[in-house]
């Protein structure tokens, strides 16, 4: 089969690999129809996440058709059209039993601090991902869901991570009616978080970024008020000015490890790998939110330490909520919202790239060329 393969920082190519075999009785093998490149894929593409091995196939957002199933699979059969959440989870461990599917204890031998994720380094379990023609899907009776007939493929693939994560991020903000919500980052997760904040009754939604084309999308797609932080000497002071010097009620970090806005923080983390991530957006969130407010962290960070301003967070009495999104827990409600027209995930797709050209896809997304917001990867004749 053809598969994307990591060749070292900033380098990927398509190679011929063996079709993955069934390795466990509850495995399924899925023929991938469509995958996406996630903003967090850029962290491993840039060599930031420890134990990212040459030869791995990335991709944790994908949909496809079941090709083969293991002997204990009961809920799926070959030919089923499925969407697969980015979390790999067993369904019965202490954490899965309580709905924390992203924190499953039975799927990642490499680390206890994170669950299993497709194509996301060995720190997340060492599973190959879906930017390939075929992918092994463990716990086929637990993770994947048959895509409803009425659902569009592009909507389905975005529900496997970006849309679900943005929606989850807004929920972790504990938004109440009339809250002022500021979202740092106008990438896919930030856009979905901003859009979702309205569903939860926000009274004002503000989005901050430095890419004007993404802020334009935040205005048109998420009805948000936007600010380009490069136009202000200090974006935190500006946030205070526009919130009557109280600060926002809720702040959402939808940027994560490669945040821009402070050269020292960015270079020491994204380039020199001396921090788990560049916490610029998180620090701005801490300083922009009002005392007693809530921070929701959706940005992905590496397992190393980061220079986060915990003193301010403590002194302000903030509540910090965070987790990898347990995707499948969001799906029943998100399916309703998509069907009712409240969310149209595919509206943020900007690029559709054949698997053979995936190296260009990574570069376009990484270097923010061509007004790229969300690139999809097409395989198997899609």
């Amino acid at each position, binding site marked *: 089969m053809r598969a994307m393969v990591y060749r070292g920082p900033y380098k990927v190519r398509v190679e011929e690999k063996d079709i993955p075999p069934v390795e466990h009785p509850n495995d399924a093998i899925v023929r991938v129809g469509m995958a996406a490149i996630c903003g967090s894929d850029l962290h491993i593409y840039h060599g930031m996440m420890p134990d990212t091995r040459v030869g791995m196939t990335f991709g944790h957002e994908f949909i496809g058709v079941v090709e083969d199933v293991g002997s204990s699979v009961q809920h799926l059969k070959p030919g089923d059209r499925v969407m697969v959440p980015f979390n790999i989870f067993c369904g019965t461990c202490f954490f899965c*039993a*309580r709905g924390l*599917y992203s924190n499953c204890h039975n799927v990642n031998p490499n680390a*206890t601090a994170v669950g299993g994720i497709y194509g996301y380094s060995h720190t997340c379990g060492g599973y190959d991902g879906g930017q390939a023609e075929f992918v092994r899907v463990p716990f086929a009776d637990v993770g994947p869901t048959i895509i409803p007939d009425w659902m569009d493929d592009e909507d389905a693939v975005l529900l496997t991570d970006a849309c679900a994560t943005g929606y989850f991020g807004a*929920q972790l903000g504990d938004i109440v009616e009339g809250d002022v919500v500021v979202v740092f980052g106008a990438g896919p997760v930030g856009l979905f978080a901003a859009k979702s904040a309205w569903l*939860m*009754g926000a009274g004002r939604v503000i989005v901050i970024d430095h890419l*004007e084309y993404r802020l334009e999308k935040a205005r048109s797609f998420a009805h948000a008020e936007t600010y380009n932080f490069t136009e202000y000497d200090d974006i935190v002071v500006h946030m205070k000015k526009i919130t009557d010097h109280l600060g926002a009620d809720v702040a959402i970090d939808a940027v994560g490890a490669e945040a821009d806005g402070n050269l020292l923080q960015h270079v020491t983390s994204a380039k020199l790998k001396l921090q788990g991530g560049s916490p610029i957006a998180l620090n701005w969130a801490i300083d922009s939110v009002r005392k007693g407010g809530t921070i929701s962290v959706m940005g992905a960070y590496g397992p190393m330490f980061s220079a986060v301003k915990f003193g301010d967070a403590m002194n302000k009495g903030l509540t910090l909520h965070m987790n990898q999104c347990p995707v499948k827990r969001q799906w029943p409600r998100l399916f309703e919202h998509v069907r009712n027209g409240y969310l149209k995930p595919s509206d943020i797709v900007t690029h559709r790239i054949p698997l053979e050209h995936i190296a260009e896809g990574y570069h376009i997304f990484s270097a923010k060329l061509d007004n790229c917001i969300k690139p999809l990867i097409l395989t198997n004749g899609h």
Partner: protein
Amino acid sequence: MAYTADKPPLAASSEELRNRIPGWGVDLDRKDRPAFPKLQFDLSATGAHWDFPERQEEKRPRERSVEHKFLTPVFGTSCPPRGLSGVIRRYAYKRYSEARAAHWLLLLGADRVDAMESHLRSFATLRPDNPITQTGVLSEFTRHGISSRVGRKRTDLVHQPLDPVIVAGPWLLAGALAYGGVKKLTRLMRS
């Protein structure tokens, strides 16, 4: 507005927002959101039909965190450790917990060694690594590389010049060291 007990007024009322934004307030009830409460005990919700999953066959020794009691019943088999990088990785897993910076720094170091080993190995194949095609840099010419940057207020432009250094730097360094070594050897042989 002075610092009083009142919350500053919003520009738009809830009614105006409901009329303007599709779906405004449909998830207004905090207790009726999928993520609430954080812990929801419901074993019947997952589709699993086991108490503890069957164990996947361990075909080769699988490295694992020392914070785990045992090898998890299911695990990825993407890229088993190999070469010098594999030795470093196995040591990092065996010796240090996830709580120790040494664990992660060793793994990051192993990643860099792995990249060098793999590049060198590729030169012994019919498809050696090609930094032009693998970085996708040619898309700079087809996807508006210049207009995506010029005249735009992008802060990342300050550090983007470091990216080629990260890609080419190790090769330039290795080349310089090799050149120096050959030069020194030649001088020694002449003397």
